[in-house]
């Protein structure tokens, strides 16, 4: 076997923990394509993850997120393209030489080993001495609040506890890169938000660890990630900070997938270069919206406005007001979701819980501020308004 050739600059965790601090590799996908027999799971995927960054891969089911993550872990060999950890091309390096911590959706705790043996697995595999293993195991279990459960078997733990052990096991080898594949998807809603905070805390405690976090849940992505890579249909759609993707989505797919925006095809009537605002028209309405970068009158664009930006309250100065017919009213506990219609265009509005919600068929006026709306390139805007689930 050729595994004596451990990567230079990537000393094995237990043996050279000090050196790991110096080597802070990011992850680089360079035009990675993965094809199974008939499906292309990942197409021409290029992405740079900075050292110490939390990058979320966000996308609908089947969009290739797991595949991307598994090329980093070494369980999928790209059909073409390269994968780098730091400066090292790891495309064809065996998984066990990469020094990557991985937590999968199913946790995959070894059922025949106690919690402490699970956490010690990577250290044992690297041939660490007993004297170094024990304190490291305790340290990692303490970090995730599971020190009291060291002697238990996985089947004696709850889902959330197994999850913590899986994270402790991945951290025990002091990975420079941590891969998390939908780590919270098997937990109930309450546990999920608790674990989300825990992972955020772990990241603050381990600022050197680069984290690639796969999820289809935008809340997880927005909470944890420094940047988000939005994927669809085995391709990278957009990448940017959580805030920029949310406030100025570069594409209609991202606008819908992150924050479930209303997308409305519009025609530009005028552009105010000084205020970077445009007056646009759709149906019988004329509204003023933000338009960074400029537009030309007559141009066709897509208006993007979030459901919660549409308000029923009387207008503040400078806000747009449009009249719409109520199609459907849903109460969602913390909000009322209104489905509105203006000349065949459907809009979703989320308001605070209403004392007297409007009735179906009623006509009312909704408002939104110019800076809460943005213009995208004209595209198939119907995709957004067709979404009734959000």
């Amino acid at each position: 076997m050729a595994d004596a050739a451990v990567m230079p600059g990537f000393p094995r965790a237990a043996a050279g923990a000090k050196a790991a601090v110096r080597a802070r590799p990011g992850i680089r996908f360079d035009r990675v394509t993965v094809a199974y027999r008939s499906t292309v799971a990942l197409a021409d995927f290029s992405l740079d993850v900075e050292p110490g960054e939390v990058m979320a891969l966000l996308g609908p089911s089947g969009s290739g997120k797991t595949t991307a993550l598994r090329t980093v872990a070494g369980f999928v060999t790209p059909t073409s393209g390269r994968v780098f950890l730091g400066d090292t091309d790891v495309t064809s390096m065996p998984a066990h030489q990469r020094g990557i911590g991985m937590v999968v959706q199913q946790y995959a705790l070894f059922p025949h080993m106690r919690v402490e043996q699970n956490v010690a697995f990577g250290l044992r595999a690297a041939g660490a001495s007993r004297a170094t293993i024990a304190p490291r195991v305790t340290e990692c279990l303490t970090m995730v609040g599971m020190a009291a459960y060291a002697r238990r078997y996985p089947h004696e733990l709850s889902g959330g506890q197994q999850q913590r052990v899986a994270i402790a096991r991945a951290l025990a080898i002091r990975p420079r890169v941590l891969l998390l594949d939908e780590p919270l998807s098997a937990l109930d809603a309450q546990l999920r938000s608790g674990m989300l905070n825990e992972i955020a805390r772990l990241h603050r405690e381990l600022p050197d660890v680069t984290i690639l976090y796969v999820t289809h849940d935008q809340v997880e992505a927005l909470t944890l990630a420094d940047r988000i890579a939005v994927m669809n249909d085995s391709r990278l759609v957009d990448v940017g900070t959580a805030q920029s993707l949310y406030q100025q989505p570069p594409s209609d797919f991202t606008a819908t997938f992150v924050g479930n925006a209303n997308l409305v095809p519009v025609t530009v009537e005028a552009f105010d270069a000084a205020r970077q605002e445009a007056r646009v028209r759709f149906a019988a309405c004329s509204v003023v919206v933000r338009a960074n970068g400029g537009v030309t009158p007559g141009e066709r664009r897509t208006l993007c406005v979030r459901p919660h930006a549409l308000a029923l309250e009387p207008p503040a100065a400078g806000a747009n007001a449009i009249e719409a017919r109520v199609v459907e009213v849903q109460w969602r506990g913390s909000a009322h979701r209104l489905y509105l219609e203006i000349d065949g265009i459907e809009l979703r509005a989320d308001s605070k819980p209403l004392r007297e919600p409007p009735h179906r068929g009623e006509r009312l006026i909704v408002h939104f501020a110019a800076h809460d709306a943005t213009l995208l390139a004209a595209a198939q805007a119907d995709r957004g308004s067709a979404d009734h689930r959000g």
Partner: protein
Amino acid sequence: MLLPSRPSRVAAWVLFFVLFVPVFGLPIVVVGAASVAGQWNDVLPSHLTLRHLHDAFVSNAGIELLTSLATGIIASVVALVIGTWAALAVRALRRRGAKVIGTLFVLPIAVPSVSVGLGLLVAFSRPPFLLNGTSVIVVIAHVVLVTAFAFSSVSAGLARLPAHFEQVAASLGGRPAYVLFRVTLPLLTPSLVAAAGLCFALSMGELGATIMVYPPGWVTLPVGIFALTDRGAVFDGAALTVLLLVLTLVVLVAVSRIRTRASYR
């Protein structure tokens, strides 16, 4: 469910027991009764005795029992090693290759045991393999016949084993051999134990190939039982059959015990 009314359910159960008990229960009961029957000239046997078992042991049954045990244990261990190795290796092949090679390993299931014995007799009576007349040829016959079962049983276990255990182990830095011995094989324990039990049971009852190849010095229990019944000592044969069943049963029960314990963790 299917039969909502109680009378019809009861009728179905009666039908079940009318079919099941005579067909499957009666033969075992009868052989059991015969093994301790001093005389059987009536509906029920009379003069119950352990003489048959004793007589059988006074002649050769003890040696035959040991022969069967030795053959069964050696053949099962060898078959388990070959079958497990093959199952692991076949899993690593491409789909088409795995199918072809896998078929090669299970094909012995389809070949009549008498023909397996004949083949060994013909092939191993000449150089370079001169094994005819040795105990080795009996063990080989058993290995041929049970390896296919070990292979398919372990393969089925591997197919049920989720890939993420081994992948996580590798990502934690486990080298292939380390992962194999620390993760894959331990997780496979239930399948391995089940395969071992099955191999042993099949080997203990094997007759067709053994009767073709056995040398005078290596007579297994089934061959011995046939020799007894063939010369009319049917009660002695029944006694040995019961012994064989009990032994097989003990092993199967032990195996299922180990198996549930191994899968519980």
